[in-house]
């Protein structure tokens, strides 16, 4: 069963709205959602670190067992802010995205991100001030940073729809239809659309059906895993799993494999190898 993910819902301050989002997204067919907090790096950059408040999840009803995550989007307008991507508060968020304002900043963010960023989101509601090239997007694909396309402004306003369609075509061309993420960016639950409707919308906007499908199912799951490996593992090698510990060790000791392992280990110890 395909798991559709919606990774950009504007974080609602009222708890009732969080429930509304969960209910509607569940009815539409989404199994994972992420609430997004957008911050301007200028305002939260203090002493080479980012100081952001971790938002509280207050979902009371979750009938479809939806997985709910927290995402941070940093709007970067100065290259000094990039060194703050190592801030400890970023590890508390499940997904981190960056929104660079200029072409230079885009290149610098991707080159210096050091596995701290999972998503590159660009402002597609206006014509981009620079021409997007393969050289901008190829480093993203090498560093497993996914480029995000948000469709909500296309539904709200016809002027922004024009810009979104033209930017979508550029992004699809430049990324060679790989490494794209499709999400809504909705402030209100009534702006979220079902996954198959979104795929059809993207097809008309210029992103092929298969790419849009991947952008709603497999790519978001890769983003979530990457976020998890950044925040909960040591360099993707070692992960601390809670609640297992001694009970597992006891089981191993009592099982046959455990006995054989102990025998071979003691033999090795005696032979001095």
């Amino acid at each position, binding site marked *: 069963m395909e798991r559709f993910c919606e990774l950009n819902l504007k974080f609602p301050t009222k708890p009732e709205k969080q429930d509304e989002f969960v209910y*509607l997204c569940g*009815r*539409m067919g989404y199994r994972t959602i992420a609430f997004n907090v957008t911050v301007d790096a200028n305002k939260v950059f203090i002493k080479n670190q980012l100081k952001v408040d971790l938002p509280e999840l207050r979902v009371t009803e979750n*009938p479809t067992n939806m997985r709910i995550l927290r995402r941070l989007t940093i709007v970067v307008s100065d290259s000094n802010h990039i060194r703050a991507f190592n801030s400890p508060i970023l590890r508390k968020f499940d997904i981190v995205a960056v929104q660079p304002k200029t072409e230079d900043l885009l290149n610098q963010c991707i080159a210096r991100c050091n596995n701290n960023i999972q998503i590159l989101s660009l402002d597609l509601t206006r014509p981009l001030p620079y021409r997007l090239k393969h050289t901008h997007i190829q480093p993203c694909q090498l560093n497993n940073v996914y480029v995000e396309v948000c469709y909500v402004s*296309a*539904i*709200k306003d*016809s002027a922004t*729809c024009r810009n979104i369609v033209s930017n979508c075509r550029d992004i699809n061309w430049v990324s060679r239809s790989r490494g794209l993420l499709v999400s809504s960016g909705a402030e209100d*639950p*009534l*702006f*979220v*659309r*079902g996954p*198959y*409707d*979104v795929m*059809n*919308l993207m*097809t*008309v906007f210029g992103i092929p059906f298969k790419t849009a499908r991947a952008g709603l199912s497999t790519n978001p799951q890769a983003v979530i895993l990457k976020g998890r490996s950044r925040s909960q593992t040591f360099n993707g090698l070692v992960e601390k799993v809670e609640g297992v510990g001694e009970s597992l060790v006891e089981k191993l000791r009592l099982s046959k494999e455990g006995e054989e392992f102990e025998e071979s280990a003691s033999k090795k110890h005696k032979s001095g190898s």
Partner: protein
Amino acid sequence: MVRLKYRYFLVELHFTDCTVHTSLTPSHLLSTIYNAVQENFGEVGLGRTQNRIKVVYLALLTGMAVIRVPADFEKDARVCLASLVVVGRERCVCNVVHVGGTIRTCQKKLYSYSLNRLHRQMLDTPDGRERDQIRGVLERTLEEVKQLSY
């Protein structure tokens, strides 16, 4: 041989609150769809769909509707339905549940979708009179559907 082909969309309308909007009529929905076609596809789009779009079925209690569009306009019609923000005077979301070549397939899907919803609602309500009522309705509907040989 040369036949006008249509596509039938089974659509679910979600509103902001759970009240039944009795002021909503099929003509409201139709005019909203035509506005969306004009906004997204202009005069050419309107020309392609003039007098061919029809709201075949609208149930306000469940929020389900069946809409007929010309077959070559299927993808574009889906874009128009996705871009619906207001119907009549109510804010709503349009979610396409099923696309079929005949009304019969949409009808079958409507039965199974409604039965699933009822079943989930029954599981969500705690034990009591309400749950028994829903169970009764489910059993009766299942029998009727069997007789229709769906």
